[in-house]
């Protein structure tokens, strides 16, 4: 049972989300405009916010930025297919995940549960991370898969560790490049393809089930069963 705020300008979609998410065991509040949504977010402190990017009174991206200025509440962006740029931009501005319209209610629920499970305060200052069969020792920079050591280069380990710290959450290419390679390398997109390919081979994950790529957006590490 979690408190969820859905902000979308389409009242009929809000109605369906309310019915569906309540049936899935959540407590749902809705807002039709950005201003209504900001007030709700500030006064009711929801546990997750579902935010449509196309709002009539204020750009969804701006809403995202404003919420981030005072809160780390997970934000899942609802986006239209074909607006990749805005999706990536919103992730860069602090959104945690996105769902593309049209979506099934189970898909939204799955994303909500991932967002709820990995709230930011839980992951700070951890020295060890576990993602399904993968274990990362952040102190010694060692990775093991099903208790067998995986031989990773330092950058490969950093890449994987960054995704593991944000497990379940999509990380944009820009975010990964900035954190792993540094702010001067944010345009070296081809690094990511090469490293993702090498890491998958070393993890025996050629199908990309553990290390998933979201074309044109970025990568996410997903524990099997999530």
């Amino acid at each position, binding site marked *: 049972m979690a408190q969820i705020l859905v902000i979308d300008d389409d*009242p*009929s979609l809000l109605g*369906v*989300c309310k*019915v569906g998410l*309540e*049936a899935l065991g959540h407590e749902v509040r809705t807002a039709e405009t950005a201003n209504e949504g900001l007030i709700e977010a500030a006064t009711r402190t929801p546990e997750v916010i579902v935010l449509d990017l196309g709002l009539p009174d204020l750009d969804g991206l701006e809403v995202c930025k404003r919420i981030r200025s005072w809160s780390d509440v997970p934000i899942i962006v609802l986006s239209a297919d074909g607006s990749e740029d805005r999706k990536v931009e919103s992730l860069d501005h602090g959104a945690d995940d996105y769902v593309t319209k049209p*979506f099934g209610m189970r898909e*939204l629920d799955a994303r909500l549960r991932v967002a709820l499970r990995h709230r930011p305060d839980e992951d700070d200052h951890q020295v060890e991370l576990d993602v399904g069969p993968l274990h990362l020792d952040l102190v010694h920079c060692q990775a093991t898969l099903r208790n067998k050591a995986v031989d990773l280069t330092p950058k490969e380990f950093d890449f994987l560790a960054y995704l593991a710290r944000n497990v379940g959450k999509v990380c944009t290419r820009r975010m990964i490049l900035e954190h792993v390679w540094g702010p001067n390398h944010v345009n070296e997109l081809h690094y990511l393809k090469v490293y993702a390919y090498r890491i998958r081979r070393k993890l025996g994950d050629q199908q990309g089930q553990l290390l998933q790529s979201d074309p044109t957006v970025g990568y996410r590490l997903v524990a099997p069963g999530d």
Partner: protein
Amino acid sequence: MRRSAMKRSAIGSSAALASMAVLTSLMIPLRSHLSIATTALILVVPVVIGVVIGGFVAGATSVVAGFLVYDFFFIPPYLTLWVGAPQNWAALGVYAVVMLPVARVVDRMNVARANERRYGKEIRELFELSDLLVEDQPLDVLLTVIVTTLADTFGSRQVALFLPEDDRLELAASAGEPLSEDDLQRILPADGAAFSLDSHSFERNELLVLALAAAGRPIGLLVLSAEAAARHEREPLLLFVNQIALAVERTQLRDEVLQARLTEEVARLAKTLVGAVSHDLRAPLASIKASSSLLSDGDLDIDLDARQSLATTIDVQADHLAALVQNLLDMSRIQAGVLTPRLSIVSPADLVSTVRDDVTPLLGNHPLVVDVPPDLPPVDIDEVLMSRVLTNLLQNAIRHGPKGSQVAISAHVASGETIELSVTDHGPGVRPDRRKEIFQLFARRDEDAGAGLGLTIARTFVEAHGQRIWVEDAPDGGARFCVTLPVAPSIPEEAPVGADSRH
């Protein structure tokens, strides 16, 4: 040319002979009082007339005639060719010797003046052409102007202009007689061979071929029949070929720029359409998918009321989708140009009540107020098209009015021939400077992501009826969209089948 010269010469000779006859008949009664020298001087006049009108040949003819007339009528003994006194011989000799050079000089002056006049005319015409060349005209018009002006100015039988097209020279414009196949073969390179405009201008088989080039780049080929190419006319012609080349090149470049801009605009419009339509399609689709995913999920415990509301959502949103698809179909119908209203006579109240039934599910919490008196005169419209107009206006009002605000339909007789139907909302209204453009394709408010097809379709349908649609401020805020409907011509009712026709 030759024939006209002979004709001119004959006219000149006749005029000379006629004037000579007149002068002679005037002088004969007075000849005893006139000196032989005076008579000779007077007989200069017909010769000059002959030269001026008919040129040197006519002049020479009149000199011979003058000589004979002088001798026959004015040198004694009269009426014989016999020349008496020796001084008479001298007079006759002087007449002949002086008159021939006089005829020659007058003729030269005449020819020079005619040349000057023609040259001046050509220059003037070419000057006019140069004015035409700098005007902003489509390429085909420009080319036609060039060839016809050249044909007129140089009196050329044939003028043709060739421009390169896909590595071949194609006839772009011509004036006068068309060039024969043989001529074409001589001028143009054989089929398949790449043409080259580097070749210098040349003259072949009575055709003058001039290469057009601007700043060293080949532009095309100008062909004139050779009578236009007499030596003294070449200079202005060659001068002009360069100007023509520049004008053609400039127009071609301008057309290319326009074409590029047009392509850009079409691409931009297509992008807008795809973006707008996909947004409009996705919004209802998102609700439908979310609802159906819940209804089909057997593991979820959803109460009956909630299930009912999900099913209603699907139903209403499917109607939205259907309406959008209908709009897209209407758009393509409009663009295919197959829009002819099928007129029938309808009562405004019936039209409104049909539409009202259709839009009821879309109203949500907007109350709909209808003020359409049932006794309004019937209108002559395509009921299907006008229903779409009214539906689109209502959808627009529902979309832009704040939650729960009232939407009103009203109708009244505006004049003897029209009924004014209006849809009023309580939305933000339309700024005066946007009142025209909201009816254009893809116009929409900045914050509104919809395709904005509805009002465009409404306008097109209304205009197909020859009627008007516009938007104005509603008296208590909001926008009022008005449409005029043509009142059906009234036919006086027949007398009821009465008792008098029955037996």
